[in-house]
């Protein structure tokens, strides 16, 4: 089990070991928040977050709603 590096919202991010999207969201205090995750250009439904493992080199976008016109 080795460390991984992936891109999160444009920033290079390192983690000591692989983790899934659900774990990532929790680490980011996103539980109970409304957000959406795109991984390598693909939208990952909430239902699949736990089952989706982040691999080295993945590109992840996490978005939420903000004020807009």
């Amino acid at each position, binding site marked *: 089990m080795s460390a991984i590096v992936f891109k999160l*919202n444009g920033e290079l991010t390192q983690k000591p070991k692989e983790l899934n999207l659900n774990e990532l969201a929790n680490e*980011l205090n996103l539980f109970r928040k409304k957000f*959406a995750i795109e991984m390598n250009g693909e939208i990952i439904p909430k239902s699949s977050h736990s089952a989706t493992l982040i691999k080295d080199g993945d590109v992840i*976008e996490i978005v*939420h709603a903000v004020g*807009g*016109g």
Partner: protein
Amino acid sequence: MTSPLRIGSRSFESRLLVGTGKYKNLEETRDAIIASGAEIVTVALRRTNIGQNSDEPNLLDFISPDKWTILPNTAGCFSAEDAVRTCMLARELLDGHNLVKLEVLGEKKTLYPNMTQTISAAKTLIEDGFEVMVYCSDDPIFCKELDDMGCVSVMPLASPIGSGLGIVNPHSISIILENSTKPIIVDAGVGTASDASIAMELGCDGVLMNTAIAKAAKPILMAEAMKDAVISGRKAFLAGRMQKTLFGNASSPIQGLIE
């Protein structure tokens, strides 16, 4: 008095749609939206701040999707591809909610829409099952095309986004209304209450605004003014205004004057 506003599969009492941008804070945003009486509220999608103040308040904690119809927009997108991608993310974010405001800009300076990209994005989204409310130019030909294509609402600008110039193109809007089969909602350009009334008096089905309320000296009060203005303009349209004449016409009888 006023029939409900039907947009795709949904129906609304209020004909005022409002944005959530440019407010001092989320409390002001919420209070202004409540004061406006709007049922449809636009939001934008942006990257979540990672790490720092990760438990900052979230817009949707203030504007609950349970109370309002959230209308995610694609503001900031300059290509059909980005716009479509943003709508997909919005649908996932809002648990399958399929009503979106499509907006593909052509230029940073004027925020004028890129109609070629807008048409192409609209096609893709409609095929993918979205109900598309589309921000567009006041070009009657494109408005008709978007209408025919199946957009649930066509939303021509009254003047550039955030300009506050009001309805600079009443003739175009009138032509668009003549050809329309879907609700025509003036989106962008309204600056003050009478602008909204004028749009409704032209026969528009609704008005969408953000800056006019958020950037007023007193946003909450302006939100109330806009609520009244849209209702007032709608009633005036339905009531059928008097004819204009160059010369006056006495309001009091001209018989029976004393001598």
